């Protein structure tokens, strides 16, 4: 789960890391009122879960109330596309904070290195710009040190990292303290990525986190009530609906609705549909041991996306029993209007029983295929051109 900048800053503040004070607003009037309270100049920053906001025009400094009004109305509601083509992401809110008097811009992060199975601390004196560009142009400018999982990581341990990154001498103690606290945020809040770019030194030589990019491990939310509340705010209506029904659903752009059991098989199903010339509308993992009820829920979620013109069920029963899936399809056809073509491929545990149940129900829009590839071709044909 990714946090918005202001949510990340609130987490930093909780752990004693200096951040500019500010307010969040989701409309222009509130943004202006916040700017008036904070004073000028103030920064008006789009709250979206993607980097490259500045380049996209999502971060502005307002010198007076007129500029605050102008920038807030420009930014709220704008669409921002990420540097790698992610999104677009609609800006629903802005964070307004007091302008900072910047003397130096650094970079600091703590991330989970899956390959090395350790937390990795990265620090650079070249902050405020695209850190991937810094790292590839001049790798020596980015200091990378793995954190020993068996030893405490305190300000003393952090000190050698900020030193070798070449930060200003008089900022070393504070920067080391911030880095140690970022590692504390990682450990205590179950963050798998924390990035501060820029970490600034102000004119009066204070070290302040001017940005915050934080990813929290979704598996840990049971022990973080405050963060779990943030996780409950999902924007997309289909994703919200799926969440309430306990399904793993990710919305995509195409017109072929997809349900499979197991994350790997579901990803593979998206791939073969794309190879067959189709455009998947979603990822939906019905999970192991899916029962009839889950199938009804899944069909409701998929169908609520108006782009969908045909649906593919790709089931390979392991724990999941194909007869349960078939019963779910029949039950669903009685409860919701199945006016879209539904291609079903059942294989694995109890597939013969499942096929018999479907044959007996003789549903009008149902098409059976024996293999995953044939099912993918069929659903693409029935869905018509990618919308």
């Amino acid at each position, binding site marked *: 789960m990714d946090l918005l900048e202001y949510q990340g800053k609130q987490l930093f503040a909780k752990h004693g890391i200096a951040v500019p004070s500010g307010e969040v607003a989701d409309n222009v009037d509130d943004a202006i009122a916040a700017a008036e309270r904070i004073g000028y100049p103030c920064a008006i920053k789009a709250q979206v879960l993607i980097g490259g906001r500045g380049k996209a025009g999502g971060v502005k400094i307002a010198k007076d109330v007129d500029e605050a009004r102008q920038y807030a109305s420009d930014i709220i509601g704008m669409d921002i596309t990420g540097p790698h083509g992610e999104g677009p992401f609609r800006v629903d809110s802005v964070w307004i904070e007091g302008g900072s008097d910047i003397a130096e811009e650094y970079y600091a992060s703590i991330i*989970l290195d899956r390959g090395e*199975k350790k937390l990795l601390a990265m620090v650079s004196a070249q902050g405020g710009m695209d850190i991937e560009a810094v790292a590839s142009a001049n790798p020596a400018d980015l200091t990378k040190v793995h954190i020993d999982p068996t030893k405490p990581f305190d300000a003393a341990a952090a000190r050698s990292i900020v030193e070798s990154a070449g930060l200003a001498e008089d900022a070393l103690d504070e920067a080391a303290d911030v880095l140690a606290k970022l590692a504390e945020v990682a450990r205590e809040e179950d963050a798998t990525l924390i990035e501060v770019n820029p970490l600034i030194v102000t004119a009066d030589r204070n070290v302040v986190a001017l940005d915050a990019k934080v990813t929290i491990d979704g598996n840990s939310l049971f022990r973080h009530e405050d963060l779990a509340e943030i996780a409950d705010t999902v924007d997309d209506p289909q994703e919200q609906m799926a969440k309430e029904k306990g399904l793993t659903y990710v919305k995509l752009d195409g017109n072929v609705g997809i349900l499979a059991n197991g994350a790997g098989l579901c990803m*593979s199903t998206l*791939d073969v549909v794309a190879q067959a010339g189709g455009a998947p509308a979603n990822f939906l993992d019905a999970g192991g041991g899916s029962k009839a009820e889950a199938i009804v829920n899944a069909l409701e979620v998929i169908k609520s996306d108006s782009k969908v013109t045909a649906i593919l069920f790709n089931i390979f029963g392991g724990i999941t029993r194909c007869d349960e899936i078939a019963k779910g399809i029949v039950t669903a056809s009685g409860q919701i209007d199945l006016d879209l073509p539904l291609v079903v491929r059942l294989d694995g*545990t109890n597939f013969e029983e499942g096929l018999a149940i479907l044959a007996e129900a003789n549903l009008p829009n149902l098409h059976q295929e024996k293999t995953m590839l044939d099912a993918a071709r069929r659903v693409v044909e029935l869905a018509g051109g990618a919308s």
Partner: protein
Amino acid sequence: MSIIIDEKTKLAVSGLTGREGSFHGLRNKAYGTDLVAGVTPGKGGQDVEGTPVFDTIKEAVDEAGANTSMIFVPARFAAPAINEAIDSGVETVIAITEGIPVLDMLATYWKAKEAGVRLIGPNCPGVLSPGKANVGIIPDSFFDPGPIGVVSKSGTLTYQIGNELKQAGTGNSSIVGIGGDPIVGSDFIDILKLYEADPDTELIVMVGEIGGDAEERAAEFIAAEITKPVVAYIAGFTAPPGKQMGHAGAIISGSSGTAQAKKDALEAKGVRVGESPTETAAIAVETLRG
């Protein structure tokens, strides 16, 4: 032969008294796995259809001779249960549980490493050595004994490929689900090493998916250390950046960890990569039969 589990496996199941744990533990037993104990704190002295239950894994080791532990307890209690298993004296711990916090697994990973205990998972379907033993939730009816070793991040995708291999008239030495989480006890490389040393494995099928760099690392390792043919499949070509696809590990940020990058890394080292599970199984069979 086979890897990780076989006729000599003596299994203790943590969570055997629970609904899922008893269903799969007893299924494993019915397959022929030597299920020697269940473990549930506070339920020591009971039994589950004749299998004795102990309060601790240590007791299951000392009193019932368990050498392999399967963890089937809910996520928030799972990391402590794995840690207990590591300290108990078993050789292998297979963690099925999904949803364990990743930083808990980070500590547990190093604990297992230090103790010299083999950890498989978490969030995995377990290990099956056809005809010998099954520890986990892999549906054994889709797999016959044979010369192909399978190692996979995904459960259902493995069943799909395994079934196609069976229909083509071949089978498996072992099937190992390493799990789809960001931190797992054993990576592709750990399992590739075991298959390389296993005389009954003639070919290895490796099933990966987006996220992390385990496939890229495996590609380097295969080129340097593996003499047996390896055929791979990667899922997640159509996954958009920044979206998490079910498995906690299956998330890509920016350009690294994409399915295409993994396919390219493997192909650059001479590993053939199938376009679909069906094609992957077909390449494996074709390679095997020369």
